[in-house]
């Protein structure tokens, strides 16, 4: 019986001793001396035997427990960096986001080592592993134990910071990481002094309820922005911008034809601040840069690089930009193109040539419809 239950060994000794004492006292008070002697011998023998068996079984259980702990650790920790692996990290962040108190601000950071592919290609994977290991150690030493730190895959890392006061504090933490990572020295038998930089995309989550995929996408967009503005820097987005309609008074005009762009600017410049882009990629950069100020996007369907459909699709698939109304401005009179744009999330379509009265009216209506009347 004692070996069936898992008790500490000292409890076994205490309990069995107690039972033996009760048994012996009872026997010696009730039975004949000769029978008592036999019972006492049997009881002591049984007691010793049960202790030996209990001790051996407990040893086996402890070893089994150690193996189980080791396996659990192997399943959650990234062996190269010593921080959580992708699955464990995602799970930890998801669970935290589901259970966190609404007033607890937190932030998700996506870190990426710049030009890491070159490290593997030019110096070798072994050195690449050292760089990843140093990044893992740096993150572990920089952030609190309650924060969730993991390797997302390759040279990308995820950090969920709890109780973040504001965007300024977050930016300071990100810049600190970037500086610390830059200052790491690597002992290598090459003439080149290897130094690496990293880019960070961060998103500050306020009272809004967002799940991990939404939050990750916002942080990933911020990382994309940090990379495209020149690596070795951080970009911080805030989910508070999602809620903030008042104060947005900028219209982003994405139009490759200079003539049309100038025309649109001249129509709207007296009422709104204007940001101009001549191609799809510039549009994305401006969107990211002025995310919390843009009230509307006027989008040409056909532009060099990423076209209007691409930009529209990008915007509507991202939490940060989904609520910004988009009006398509196109010379294409094909009904199918118009329908496709509306299907993808545009609120209206203006057919060129540009008529100032039509543009003003459509913009006004679209803003009213989106609840962003200025």
């Amino acid at each position, binding site marked *: 019986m004692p070996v069936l239950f898992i008790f500490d060994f000292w409890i076994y000794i205490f309990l069995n001793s107690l039972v033996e004492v009760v048994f012996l006292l009872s026997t010696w008070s009730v039975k004949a001396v000769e029978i008592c002697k036999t019972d006492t011998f049997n009881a002591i023998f049984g007691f010793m035997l049960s202790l030996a068996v209990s001790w051996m079984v407990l040893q086996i259980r402890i070893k089994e*427990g150690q193996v189980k702990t080791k396996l659990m650790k192997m399943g959650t920790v990234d062996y190269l960096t010593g921080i959580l692996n992708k699955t464990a990290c995602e799970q930890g962040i998801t669970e935290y986001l589901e259970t966190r108190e609404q007033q607890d601000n937190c932030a998700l950071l996506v870190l990426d080592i710049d030009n890491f592919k070159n490290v593997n290609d030019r110096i070798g994977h072994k050195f690449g592993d050292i760089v990843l290991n140093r990044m893992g150690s740096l993150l572990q030493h920089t952030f609190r134990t309650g924060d969730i730190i993991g390797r997302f895959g390759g040279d990308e890392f995820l950090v969920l910071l709890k109780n973040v006061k504001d965007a300024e504090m977050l930016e300071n933490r990100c810049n600190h990481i970037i500086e610390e990572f830059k200052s790491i020295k690597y002992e290598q038998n090459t003439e080149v002094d290897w130094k690496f930089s990293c880019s960070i995309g961060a998103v500050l989550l306020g009272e809004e309820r967002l799940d991990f995929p939404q939050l990750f996408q916002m942080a990933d967009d911020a990382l994309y922005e940090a990379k495209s503005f020149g690596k070795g820097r951080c970009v911080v987005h805030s989910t508070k911008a999602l809620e903030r309609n008042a104060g947005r008074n900028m219209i982003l005009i994405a139009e490759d034809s200079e003539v049309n762009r100038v025309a649109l600017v001249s129509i709207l410049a007296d009422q709104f601040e204007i940001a101009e882009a001549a191609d799809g990629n510039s549009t994305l950069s401006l969107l990211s840069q002025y995310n919390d100020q843009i009230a509307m996007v006027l989008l040409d369907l056909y532009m060099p690089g990423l076209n209007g459909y691409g930009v529209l699709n990008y915007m509507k698939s991202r939490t940060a930009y989904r609520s910004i109304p988009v009006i398509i401005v196109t010379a294409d009179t094909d009904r199918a193109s118009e329908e496709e744009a509306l299907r993808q999330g545009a609120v209206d379509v203006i057919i060129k040539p540009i008529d100032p009265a039509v543009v003003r009216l459509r913009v006004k209506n679209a803003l009213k419809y989106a609840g962003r009347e200025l």
Partner: protein
Amino acid sequence: MFEQIISYNENRRSYFKNHQSYISETNLSVLKQSMVFLLILVLFFIMITPTIFPTWKMTIYYLVLFPTVICYGVLAIFLRKCHNVQLKFVQPICLSFYFVFMLELIGIDVWANPKTSAPFFR
């Protein structure tokens, strides 16, 4: 030798600290299964013992086994249905069962059979 004892103690401590939920679950499961087996065993031997030992008589010491087994069995089933029962609640229940059960065996060994050697404590 001394180092081995220290290492054993550390392992033992970390085992009981890190596997609390596993130990709780296992002990509750063992308690439940023990109750089922004990009930079957007691019933079986109460039926066959008179045929082997015609002079044997059923006494109160044997009968008290039933309420004990049933009470702890019901408690184990109830606790198994509650999720994440803490070790500090499970261990005293299992320990008390073990102690009560052993006292009942002592009752059978000593007072139900005062003129023979103990049938269970050998």
